């Protein structure tokens, strides 16, 4: 202790104090100190301790609530994530199924188109053959008719015989009949 107060009051004519005295003055001074300390304790508690404890408790409560909210949000997010993962897994399966079906359908369609095209080609080919055959027969018929006609003309010239129309037609018909038979 750096004794400043006794130095300031050295000239005082009051009776000297004591270190320890058990008398009525001690009790009265104790009473004064009880008052002093009671006032101080009340003021410190009222001004400092209680408001600060309230502030700290409120902050603790706020942080606890926020932590709880964060925990709830996290759980919700995990649930959503799980749900989305399930959905995504379902979508993946569905996508594969759709692709498979599409592929299958495309393949069927492709096969059908090939089959149709081939059949069409065969039909065209057959029709062409038939047309060719008809044309061939028609040409043969025409050729025979012309050959017969030329032959008749030639024959008529050669034998120099006047032949009427009836004889001409009869000879023609006979020649055609022979031709057909041949």
């Amino acid at each position, binding site marked *: *202790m750096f004794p*400043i*107060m006794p130095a300031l009051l050295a000239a005082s004519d009051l009776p000297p104090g004591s270190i320890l005295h058990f*008398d009525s003055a*001690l009790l009265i*001074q104790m009473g004064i100190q*009880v008052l002093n300390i009671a006032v101080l304790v009340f003021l*410190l508690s009222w001004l400092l301790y209680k408001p600060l*404890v309230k502030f700290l408790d409120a902050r603790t409560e706020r942080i606890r609530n926020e932590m709880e909210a964060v925990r709830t949000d996290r759980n919700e997010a995990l649930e959503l994530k799980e749900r989305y993962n399930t959905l995504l897994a379902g979508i993946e399966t569905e996508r594969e199924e759709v692709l498979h079906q599409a592929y299958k359908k495309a393949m069927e369609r492709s096969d059908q188109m090939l089959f149709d095209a081939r059949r069409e080609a065969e039909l065209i080919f057959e029709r062409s053959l038939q047309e060719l055959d008809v044309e061939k027969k028609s040409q043969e018929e025409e050729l025979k008719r012309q050959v017969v006609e030329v032959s008749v003309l030639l024959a008529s010239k050669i034998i120099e015989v006047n032949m009427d129309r009836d004889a001409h037609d009869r000879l023609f018909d006979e020649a055609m009949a022979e031709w057909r038979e041949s």
Partner: protein
Amino acid sequence: MNFSNQNLWFLFTLGDTEIYITETILATWIVMAVLILFAVFVRLRLRSFKRVPTGFQNIIETLIEMMQGFVKDNLDEDMERHGGFFFGLFVFILTSNYSGMFGLRPPTSDLATTGALAMMVFVMIHGMGIARQKGKYIKSYIEPAFLFLPINIIGELAKPLSLAFRLFGNILSGVIIATMIYNMLPIVFRFLLPDVAHVYFDILVGALQAYVFTVLSMTFVMQKSTDIFS
């Protein structure tokens, strides 16, 4: 060398007893003024306290959380609302013990102060005991047998006496030793060498005694408020 608690001003006479404003009372008022101003300052700053503490707010929060730790460790949930009382005692004792470093005679180096503190704790112990234990409070004096009544009464009276004399003795011894050191040293050395004594007697012993007084008070209050025989 004068270790006595000097009378500063005459106050009044009560019967044959002259009452003075002593160094202790003046120092108590100074300590009170400092603490009340500090409390008002903190109370005003509380409005601007942030959610994430920094600087000064950290110091205040550490102090309050330390006190809450004492309270939670030594009192039950119902008693925690009296934390302000113990906080006031702790802060007053600590500041009083440290006031020696600022040229004051520590108020706790006077039996009137430590006796007043012990008296308040005594009232708290038995007030809480009666309030919480009711009939069991009286019964606790004859536990575990009626024969123990005198011992129990002496034990209860010894608690505040031990609190008062422990604090008084420790702080007064520091004052005496520090005063002796100041008086032994030449004036030129009085600003450096006594620092070692201040660090030990004021800072270490001061904090330790404030802690011991507060924690013992809480323990005594809790003991008397709890039915330990049931």
